[in-house]
């Protein structure tokens, strides 16, 4: 008899999972707090009364080559407001605005708020010296779902780790049996939530930082090509914990329709990366005073770019796509599992299971759903993706540790990921060995197997069948029960019938053949209820010396006779 249990894990396991999940919870909570603090202030600002203001001055401050912590282009504004009782001035455009790396953004603001214009502004009734021209975008509120997701995964995971699972049946002898009904189901929602973190994280990086810039680059390739003058160019260095990253800082001017414009956009890819040489080359070939060509949006002359981007940078977009792929596959798999469970729950317990297409006519072909090659490819891709992502973080941890930084928390966080990655790697050689195994295909000459009936079972191997030393095919009847009471769910199986169908040694034509299969009339047909089952399986074992055996099982439905 085999026994499986679905009990709880030990205290060390729980502590380990708790530490792991606490990292999610702590990080998510901290960022949630920071964002909520900002939102609360923003909500308060939106309640300030709106007054008419007069713009006293409006300029764009250019400071190319500004230090790392400063933005090079800043919209500077000063405005005055007055009521019957008081008046004041302010130079705050919007809370949280400190400038921009894009001069176009600052120039547009200067266009929107020209000197002498009458515009609405919001004035703090409690501190009349405090006023703003604009509120921060309320769409920013949506970003709070990102840290909240981490909070949910962390807190939910810790809760599920520690709460006592329980499954307590209440049946008792002496009362009506037929009044009781039984049901069971589980959930895969937590797994979906876990993978959704990967998915959302990947999308949040991929869409704004790679997909949108790529689309913009493609669109800009059709813009007007205009001569422009480089006024400033340099490689900007961004120091970081894991080494510096670099970006090109440029300012150029151009003329459209007789008017002079400026832009500071190098390409559409925002941010910086660790690649230095190509940026340095471009800057050296485009020093101050160089005349070159830039692309200008015909519909908005302030919208210009001097370079359409590089393939190398676009390839970096594949990195977040890996997160998207892992997260998407994980979420889809979890939801599919939930759906299957839902369907199984809804199924009438006495109805024959529909594991095989028993209806219709003609032979029934039994073949493993996934070929060994596809298993190897899938296993290898998974191992590469998983270890690729994990490897980046391991590398960060190792280099950080080598630099004398405290990396204990990150190392602890990475342990389960590394273990899964190692298991995936160890699995590859096994899958590779199994791939060259001959692959069986069984055919039953009839789709309906009934008690007392017989059928012809044909088999055919594809691949290196000469390596087979022995072939055994057996028909097995198995009873399987699940017990739910208290906190554990336990499943037991017992094989009640083992009928040899084929048992052939090497040299007797193992690659293909036929055998007679008889289902005894006095045994039990297939049966499936919520907690009790009778299952029939065709088990094929092809022995190979010093190699993984060919092992395959096919579940077959054995029905009671029609009459």
């Amino acid at each position, binding site marked *: 008899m085999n026994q499986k249990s679905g009990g709880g894990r030990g205290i060390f396991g729980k502590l380990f999972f708790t530490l792991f999940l606490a990292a999610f919870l702590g990080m998510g909570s901290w960022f949630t707090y920071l964002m909520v603090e900002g939102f609360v202030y923003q909500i308060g600002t939106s309640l300030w009364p709106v007054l008419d203001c007069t713009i006293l001055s409006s300029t764009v401050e250019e400071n190319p080559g500004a230090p790392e912590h400063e933005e090079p282009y800043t919209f500077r504004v000063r405005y005055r407001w007055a009521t019957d009782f008081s008046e004041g001035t302010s130079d705050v455009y919007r809370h949280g605005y400190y400038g921009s790396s894009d001069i176009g953004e600052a120039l547009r603001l200067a266009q929107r708020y020209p000197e002498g214009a009458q515009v609405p502004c919001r004035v703090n009734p409690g501190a009349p010296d405090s006023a703003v021209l604009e509120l921060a975008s309320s769409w920013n509120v949506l970003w709070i779902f990102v840290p909240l997701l981490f909070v949910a995964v962390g807190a939910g995971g810790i809760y599920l780790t520690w709460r006592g699972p329980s499954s*307590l049946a*209440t049946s008792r002898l002496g009362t009506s049996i037929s009044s009781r009904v039984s049901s069971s189901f589980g959930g895969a929602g937590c797994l979906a939530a876990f993978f959704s973190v990967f998915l959302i994280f990947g999308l949040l990086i991929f869409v704004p930082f790679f997909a949108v810039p790529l689309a913009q680059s493609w669109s800009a390739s059709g813009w007007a090509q205009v001569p422009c003058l480089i006024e400033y160019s340099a490689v900007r260095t961004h120091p970081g914990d894991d080494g510096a990253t670099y970006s090109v800082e440029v300012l150029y001017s151009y003329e459209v329709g007789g008017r002079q414009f400026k832009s500071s956009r190098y390409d559409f890819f925002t941010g910086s990366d660790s690649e230095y040489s190509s940026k340095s080359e471009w800057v050296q070939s485009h020093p101050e005073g160089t005349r070159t060509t830039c692309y200008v949006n015909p519909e908005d002359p302030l919208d210009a770019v001097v370079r359409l981007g590089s393939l190398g940078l676009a390839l970096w977009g594949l990195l977040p796509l890996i997160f998207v792929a892992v997260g998407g596959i994980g979420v889809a798999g979890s939801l599919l599992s939930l759906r299957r469970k839902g369907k199984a729950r809804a199924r009438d317990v006495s109805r024959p299971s529909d594991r095989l297409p028993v209806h219709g006519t003609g032979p029934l072909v039994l073949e493993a759903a996934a070929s060994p090659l596809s298993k190897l490819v899938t296993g290898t891709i998974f191992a590469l993706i998983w270890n690729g992502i994990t490897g980046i973080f391991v590398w960060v941890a190792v280099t950080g540790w080598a630099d004398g930084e405290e990396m204990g928390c990150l190392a602890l966080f990475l342990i389960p990921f590394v273990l899964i990655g190692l298991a995936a790697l160890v699995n590859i050689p096994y899958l590779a060995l199994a791939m060259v195994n001959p692959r069986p295909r069984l055919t039953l000459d009839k789709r309906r197997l009934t008690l007392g009936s017989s059928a012809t079972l044909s088999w055919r191997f594809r691949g290196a069948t000469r390596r087979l030393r022995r072939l055994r095919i057996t028909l097995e009847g198995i009873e399987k029960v699940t017990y739910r009471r208290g906190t554990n769910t336990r499943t037991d199986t017992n094989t009640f019938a083992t009928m040899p169908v084929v048992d052939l040694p090497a040299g007797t034509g193992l690659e293909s053949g036929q055998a007679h299969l008889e289902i005894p009339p006095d045994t039990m047909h297939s049966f499936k209820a919520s907690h009790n089952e009778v299952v029939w399986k065709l088990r094929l074992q092809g022995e190979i010396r010093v190699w993984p055996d060919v092992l395959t099982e096919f579940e077959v439905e054995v029905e009671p006779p029609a009459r």
Partner: protein
Amino acid sequence: MRARDNPYRVERLHALRFRLQGGCWDRLWERFVRQGRRGCVLGPHGSGKTTLLLELAERLRDTGLSVRMETVRTGESRRHDPRLWCEGLGEGAVLVVDGADLLSPLRWRRLVQGKPRVAGLIVASHTRRLLPVLHSCRTTADLLDDLIRELHPGNGCRQPSAGDLFTRHRGDLREALRELYDFHAGIRGQSCRV
């Protein structure tokens, strides 16, 4: 042995009465009343919490009280709403909840602190949560021996002793009795014909 003849089949295990050790039912009732008709049945796995709840529910019904018993199962906690449990129950009714520790904290709070319109509340849990303890379930080898004698009196074969089973399963009587099921079923190469 056929499953339906096995003396340790689930239905017989579930029919066992709870042995209230070191006290009497009247004293338990007094404690229940003294605690404001609220209490928690505590104990580790396989110590008899469910059995005690069933026994209590039956005894409360015998006194004329209206009793509603609810079981929260793994994965089903979201389907349970304590407010619905109280609907349709009279003011003198007692609500008995098995697997209460599976309820979400919000629903648990709703159950314990949310002014349920029932006169009494008894829950089974692995941990103490906001309710006074009504009874702590504990097991002994003698208790297991007692249960074995009831399930299979005078069995003439040499089955594992209660002491060995108790030690092997660390006091989890449910698991100990499940091992005896296997023994009598002839599973693991052993067979006992009576």
